[in-house]
């Protein structure tokens, strides 16, 4: 409060206002200004520091951060099929691609892509049949279709987002529609030949 008021225009002193400077305290104003500045800056720093706990409390809490990994068993997934798992409250698509799908993905010239990336860069070496992507359209966050065999998979055989018509190919790359980038790839690793850990 005092800080705000300090900036207000001084009104004419009714009674002995701050305008009165007693000769006995001649060096008063200078010293007072310094003190005021020091006290004001201290108070300002303190206020900013105390704001941090309030702000930081709204960041992900420790229990939320601890749930950052999910394990997926790959054995039940047949070729050409896909499963959806939850990771950090979002769907992760795990698809076991057919050799033909891999072939399609690799035959596209990278320079033609909106978000250029080779198929090799989107899978783990030696595990080319497994494509793991975040099932969140990079346009505005809808979940694209294409996981169920009956779903529309779009013009490029990958996924199709029904919200605004984005088409993704069999490497999860954006090919047509408003989405700006390819489907994101979460951090994951193979813990064995048949298991992955996402996150």
């Amino acid at each position: 409060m005092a800080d705000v008021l300090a900036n207000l225009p001084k009104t004419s002193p009714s009674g002995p206002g701050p305008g009165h400077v007693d000769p006995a305290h001649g060096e008063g104003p200078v010293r007072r200004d310094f003190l005021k500045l020091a006290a004001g800056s201290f108070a300002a720093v303190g206020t900013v520091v105390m704001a941090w706990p309030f702000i930081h409390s709204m960041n992900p809490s420790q229990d939320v951060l601890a749930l950052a990994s999910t394990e997926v068993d790959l054995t039940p997934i047949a070729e050409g099929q896909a499963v959806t798992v939850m990771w950090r409250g979002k769907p992760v698509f795990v698809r076991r691609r057919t050799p033909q799908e891999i072939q399609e993905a690799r035959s596209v010239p990278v320079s033609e892509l909106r978000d250029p990336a080779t198929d090799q860069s989107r899978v783990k070496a030696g595990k080319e049949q497994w494509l793991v992507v975040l099932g969140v359209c990079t346009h505005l966050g809808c979940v694209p279709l294409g996981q169920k065999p009956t779903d529309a998979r779009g013009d490029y055989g990958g996924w199709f987002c029904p919200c605004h018509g984005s088409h993704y190919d069999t490497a999860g790359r954006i090919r047509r529609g408003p989405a700006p980038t390819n489907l994101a790839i979460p951090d994951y690793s193979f813990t064995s030949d048949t298991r992955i850990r996402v996150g």
Partner: protein
Amino acid sequence: MRRPMFNLIPTLKAAAVAAALALAPAALDTGARAAEGGPGSGHDVIRIPDTKFTFDGIFGTFDRASVQRGFQVYKEVCSACHSLRQLSYRHLTGIGLTPSQVAAISSQFQVQDGPNDNGEMFERPARPSDRFRRPFANDAAARAANNGALPPDLSVMVKAREGGADYMHALLVGYEEPPPGVTVMEGMHYNKYFPGHQIAMAPPLNTDGQVTYADGTTATVDQMATDIASFLAWAAEPELEQRRAMGVRMIVFLTILGGLVYAVKRKIWSNLHGE
């Protein structure tokens, strides 16, 4: 003009200071505390003996080694009956364990998960993010296994009992033969520090060496009781060290700020003194 009979404000100030001084030791003293017995205990006041803990006082911190030993006691003794439901294995990094040590510990426990694709619940090794395994599926199961008595959850036990960690320690070493004339009910045990003196819990720590400490500390009953009390104190207030450290910085900061603001106040008010 006659002055009032005595000047009230300085008197009150003195009284406030005196009250604060009187209050402060009572608040900060972790020493002998009196726990009042329940209505049935005839108001006998039980003196809880003071145990020296490293986290006593204003600047105290946890003794990591003792807290870790306490966790071992919990794991090998207490956890057979008592849950610690507010804690997850990942919290153990707070007692100085590394994430890989925590992962190794959690994987020793089986927790229930599911349902799986067949709609069935299944057991799997615990992950650090899982809560501590509970010894019983629910309160009814816990009572059924314990003669109708419910072993309380220990997560905030130190904050939930008058006397805190001192009381935990005292309770665990306070089992003895009932004094002459006192009959202990069937299934109950005499404990000189328990309100009412009759406790359903059988003496959990009864022989030296009941636990083999990894660090070679001799596991006397008193040592185990101290360690488990330290562990439970940490479990109840894992923020204690951060809180106290922050408090010290806060008060140093406010004291300086207070000095500055008071100097400004003196300066500004000195204008009025010239008249």
